[in-house]
């Protein structure tokens, strides 16, 4: 496997990442200038837009907190040498579980109810991820394929459950569930943006995972597994639990992101609300070279660029999803060895 990881010389790793980012950014800006209707004002809103108001700031921070979670999720799996391509479904299912908890638990539970809803989101996501881990441990079914396909089969099911009598709002024509009771809303920060207190969870989680992966024996074994599976096996590592664990943890983080989206931002489950979070998490994890410490700055940077492209499109200065193009370019170049190692 050829994933980017901490290089013996950190400067080479960093410069390679920065170069990949620069190439992707350049490609985006060139498109903006060539095809945008007003290149100059488009460039202005691209680079200044995300900082232009507390609203824009808050939304950027909120979105990046979610990306920290999905980025950590992807990097935990990558670090252990596993591909989790099922983030999309795991986030969505986590959102559904949190919705179910918030709709059916008695509202008087208050903060405890919020906690229960977040935990059910995590459990749902972890369950979906762990299934792939178990399939790998028991039957050697490649997780690259099972995570993707399981997620692909979950998404339409959640789509249809949202509008079912169980969760849907009677007489509403929107593709969304009922609103959850206000007791379960995560309190907002920096109104009128959609930033909320739950977003602050991302920072301690990044620290916890940073310590776990980089500074504990458990994390060492996980990284060993990612570097050289055969060698890890010879050292006596239990392959069963180390297939289950990274994918389960990864799923739990995805599920938490989905739950936070429901309790903090949407206060309902809107169809497709989390579309792209899983893929973007993979991009963030790769920018961070799968190191949990680097996930926070990577998520901030990624969100800034993503919001910037959205703003340009929103103001009609570019006719299509510029952000998808930027994301594609990042994924394409981020693992490339543009800076040659001297050998």
């Amino acid at each position, binding site marked *: *496997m*050829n*994933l980017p990881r901490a290089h013996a010389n950190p400067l080479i790793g960093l410069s390679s990442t920065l170069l990949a980012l620069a190439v992707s950014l350049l490609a985006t800006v060139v498109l903006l200038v060539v095809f945008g209707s007003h290149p100059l004002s488009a460039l202005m809103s691209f680079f200044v837009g995300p900082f232009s108001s507390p609203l824009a700031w808050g939304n950027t921070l909120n979105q990046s907190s979610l990306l920290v979670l999905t980025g950590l999720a992807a990097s935990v799996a990558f670090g252990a*040498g596993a*591909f989790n*391509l099922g983030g999309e479904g795991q986030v969505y299912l986590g959102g559904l579980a949190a919705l179910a908890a918030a709709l059916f638990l008695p509202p008087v539970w208050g903060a405890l109810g919020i906690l229960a809803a977040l935990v059910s989101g995590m459990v749902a996501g972890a369950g979906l991820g762990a299934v792939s881990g178990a*399939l790998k441990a*028991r*039957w*050697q*079914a*490649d997780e*690259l*394929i*099972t995570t*993707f*396909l*399981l997620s*692909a*089969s*979950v*998404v*339409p*099911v*959640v*789509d*249809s*459950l949202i509008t*079912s009598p169980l969760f849907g709002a009677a007489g509403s024509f929107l593709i969304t569930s009922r609103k959850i009771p206000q007791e379960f809303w995560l309190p907002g920060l920096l109104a009128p943006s959609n930033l909320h207190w739950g977003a602050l969870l991302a920072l301690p989680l990044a620290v916890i995972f940073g310590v776990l992966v980089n500074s504990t024996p458990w994390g060492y074994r996980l990284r060993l597994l990612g*570097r*050289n*599976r055969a060698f890890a096996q010879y050292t006596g590592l239990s392959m069963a639990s180390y297939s289950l664990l990274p994918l389960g943890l990864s799923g739990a983080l995805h599920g938490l992101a989905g739950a936070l989206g429901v309790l903090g931002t949407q206060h309902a489950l809107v169809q497709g609300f989390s579309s792209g979070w899983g*893929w973007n998490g*993979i991009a963030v994890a*790769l920018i961070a070279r799968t190191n949990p410490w680097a996930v926070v700055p990577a998520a901030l940077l990624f969100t800034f660029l993503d919001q910037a492209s959205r703003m340009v499109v929103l103001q009609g200065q570019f*006719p*299509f*999803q510029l952000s*998808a*193009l930027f*994301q*594609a*370019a*990042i*994924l*394409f*170049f*981020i*693992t*490339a*060895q*543009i800076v040659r190692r001297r050998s």
Partner: protein
Amino acid sequence: MNLPFDLFTPLLLAALGALFSERAGLLNIALEGQMLGGAFTAILVQQLTGNLALTVLAVTSFGALSSLVLAWGTLKLKADPFIAALGLNLLVPALTGWVSFLLFGNLGVIRLATNVAPRWEGIPVTFLLALALAGLAHFVLFHTSWGLRLRSAGASEHLMASRSLGTRGIKTAALVISGVLGAVGGAVLALNLGAWVQGVSAGKGWIALVALYLGLRKPLPLLLAVALLAWTEQLSGALQAIPELPGGLLLGLPSLITVVVFVITSAAGRPHRKSARVTSR
């Protein structure tokens, strides 16, 4: 019962594409994007020119070009083949949306006025061609020296290196074949439908990868695998006509069945993905 030609042919073409790439040791995850791109190119060129030969040419070029980009990224720039391919899979839907918007002013559906998919005695010609291609793939991979070199490149890079044989050329060729087959598969899918719809490939590029393993990575068992997967997809489509059954569950059914099938073949100990992951440095 109506035979699922419309599902069988695109899936078989894409699965044959997956076969070439996997045998060369560079499993092509970008098939999903290449099918989607092929479908879009086919409807676009057919709509603009009305010339089937030009359409075939355009679709083939798209498949080859997208594969060359992927080969450049993975073989020259040494990017991870799966991650770079994911990038391609994200790029294609964005590009189709953009081009469709530029040319037709909408992101939605393009419908062809006439059905151009030729038939012979009621059987789609593309179906017969795809069957012939499966036979050809078997011959090329297992009965030519080029096929032996391709399989050797996939089985052991060290062996090739020890014989002073490079693998970049042959891997590029395998990727190009793979991309062309995937794009043509997508084109057949869209031309059978007579229309372009956003996301028309709907995961078929991934199902093709499962068909590859279910088909034991050999062209002839692959036919059976593709037939089984096409039939299950048709079944779930037929079940959706029954109003008592929940629609969402059925939409998820093809992926779910595919996972189950994939796990069974994995458990039966078929040869595993030999691609780049093994060559960790």
